[in-house]
């Protein structure tokens, strides 16, 4: 019984980071109906951002978070202008392919630079012990920081003028343009935010687990599953969906061979897409 509770707690902690990763994907979708296939590469960039800043420049691991957020934001804006802007209004296939192409280039450059070796950033934090079970400090702090970042995003979107403009553009781009909102700039800003969030998620993941240049694929797939559960384009849903995925991984594994959880994850993913295209946890939109 205690084991199940421990699994649930672990699931929630890790799931919240999945949620953060998916938040970037879902924000971009919500604002411009683009599935960003550079997402995995952005997560990996966050991981390597941590590794380089912590190992080469000797910045304390968690102090890299704001730098990675800012860096991700700027890179995201550049990516928008390279791979998305020209293709807005064309068939969605085009942007899928262009972001996929950028993904190939980024991963290719990363592979050429670092190979596909496993990197490990040792972070020593006190952990919390509960009976025989231990919750690693990195997991707890990652969940806390995720909550803080998601909270900050909420404040931005609902309580600042620029954030409201992002929502306005997501809601009705033409009307936003007519109201005097420079929509293209808002789109690039949103893309930047999405990439920054993905990078931050990558950085937090890298404090918990070792990683390689190719780790992005797995987390990108998880982000897809999370967005499907939470509803594409729904930031609150992304967090709930992330925690749901974490729970599936932690909880289902207690009752069946762990290798079957992947089957459950993806079957659920397809089933949810078919039955609830807006996500199980999609909050009703007005």
């Amino acid at each position: 019984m205690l084991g199940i509770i421990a699994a649930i707690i672990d699931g929630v902690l890790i799931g919240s980071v999945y949620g953060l990763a998916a938040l970037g994907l879902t924000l971009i979708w919500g604002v411009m109906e683009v599935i960003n296939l550079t997402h995995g590469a952005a997560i990996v960039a966050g991981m390597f951002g941590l590794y380089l800043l912590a190992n080469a420049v000797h910045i304390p691991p968690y102090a890299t978070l704001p730098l990675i957020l800012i860096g991700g934001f700027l890179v995201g804006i550049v990516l928008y202008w390279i791979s998305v802007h020209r293709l807005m209004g064309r068939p969605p296939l085009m942007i899928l392919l262009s972001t996929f192409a950028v993904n190939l280039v980024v991963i290719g450059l990363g592979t050429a630079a670092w190979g596909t070796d496993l990197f490990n950033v040792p972070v020593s934090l006190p952990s919390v012990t509960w009976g025989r079970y231990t919750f690693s400090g990195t997991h707890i702090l990652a969940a806390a920081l995720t909550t803080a970042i998601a909270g900050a995003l909420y404040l931005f979107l609902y309580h600042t003028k620029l954030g409201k403009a992002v929502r306005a553009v997501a809601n009705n781009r033409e009307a936003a343009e007519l109201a005097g909102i420079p929509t293209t700039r808002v789109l690039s800003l949103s893309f930047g935010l999405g990439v920054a969030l993905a990078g931050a998620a990558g950085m937090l993941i890298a404090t918990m687990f070792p990683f390689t240049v190719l780790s992005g694929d797995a987390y990108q797939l998880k982000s897809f599953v999370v967005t499907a559960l939470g509803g594409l384009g729904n930031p609150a849903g992304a967090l709930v969906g992330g925690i749901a995925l974490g729970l599936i991984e932690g909880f289902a594994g207690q009752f069946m061979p762990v290798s079957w959880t992947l089957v459950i994850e993806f079957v659920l993913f397809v089933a949810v897409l078919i039955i609830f295209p807006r996500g199980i946890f999609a909050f009703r939109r007005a």
Partner: protein
Amino acid sequence: MRKLYLLAAVAALVAAPAFADDMLTIGMTLSQTGPLNVDSVAQQRGAELWRDEVNAAGGIKAGSKHYKVRFVTYDDQSQGGRVQQLYTRLIVQDKSQFLFGPYSSGLCATAAVISEQYGKPMLITGGAEAKTLELGNKYLVQVLSRAGEYLAGAIRALESKNAHAKLAVVYADDPFSKAVAVAARKLAQAGGLDIVLDESYAPNTTDFSAIINKTISASAEALVGGGHYADGATLARQIHDQKANLKYISLLVAPDSPQFASLGDAAYGITVPSQWEVQAAYKPDFGPTGAAFAKAFAAKFKIAADYHSALGYAGGLLLQHAIEQSGSIDADKVVAVLNAMDVTTFFGRFKIATDPGHHGLQVAHEMVLAQWQRKNGRLEREVVWPKAAQTADLIYPLH
């Protein structure tokens, strides 16, 4: 200046590789990229050391001729889909006379059929799974101990400390790890260990929390399993982070890499079944001693040799011996010699099965068990099993 450099590169690409008649071409793929690259590159370096030493000594002597050795290598990106294409190319286009297998059982299984289809001998130095060698191939030669042997030492070492330990078997879903786990399970049951958890995980798993929680819930005292480098290292780190309080841990492959020490405290006490450790001082019938190999390797690559490097070198050494013995580079003659060989090198004993159902399967080589221990504040691997080859006592329990 840069233009000139580019021009030279293009010229090098265009110019047909000119080589004299007395050149022996060996083809292989390696995983420069992809999840298998750490071990694959180590294996490749061992082979390169052998090649350079042979060429420096004037080449391989076969009959009256001396053959210089040339390698042709391609990056298989750790993907099976590329392996067949590349091995075919190695034979057909690059005219390889002999082949070295790729790294990992899965890739070897994919490459094996090409050796049969084109009748080219392939020395397997990085594929332990036996299944590939039970399909009726006539040109495969396995240099390393097969997968079934991997955890034998680890299980026996555990039994020597606690004959009824509660054991968790946790392994990656790939051909090699699965074959290892199946054999380990049988051995453990036969020996009276209590298997309290038996789980596999997808090779690209990044989060092991669920498995570790299950291990704790099952009150396991020992854990054996793992897979390749990336998953094994991650598993080790999470066992440490989640304080699973295991008394004994034995993981495949990953802890054998010098890089494993980058895990710090998480690496301490972990044991690894090893095909070769420098401390195991076999008396070689030919070729260098283990110490001499390790020294030459460290001098060339500025990194310690692990068993994958030793395998790469041993593969070359055995092929060289077989060619010299047969006095020719004819595939069938060389294979005939390999079939009959029963020798000991710095790597240990070599002898393969020759019956049609198991041709090429390694039957004589023995493995050792190594453990990461602290020596003067630094993490180092010590041989802890079998007792005869031991350089340090097994640390048990870890907690």
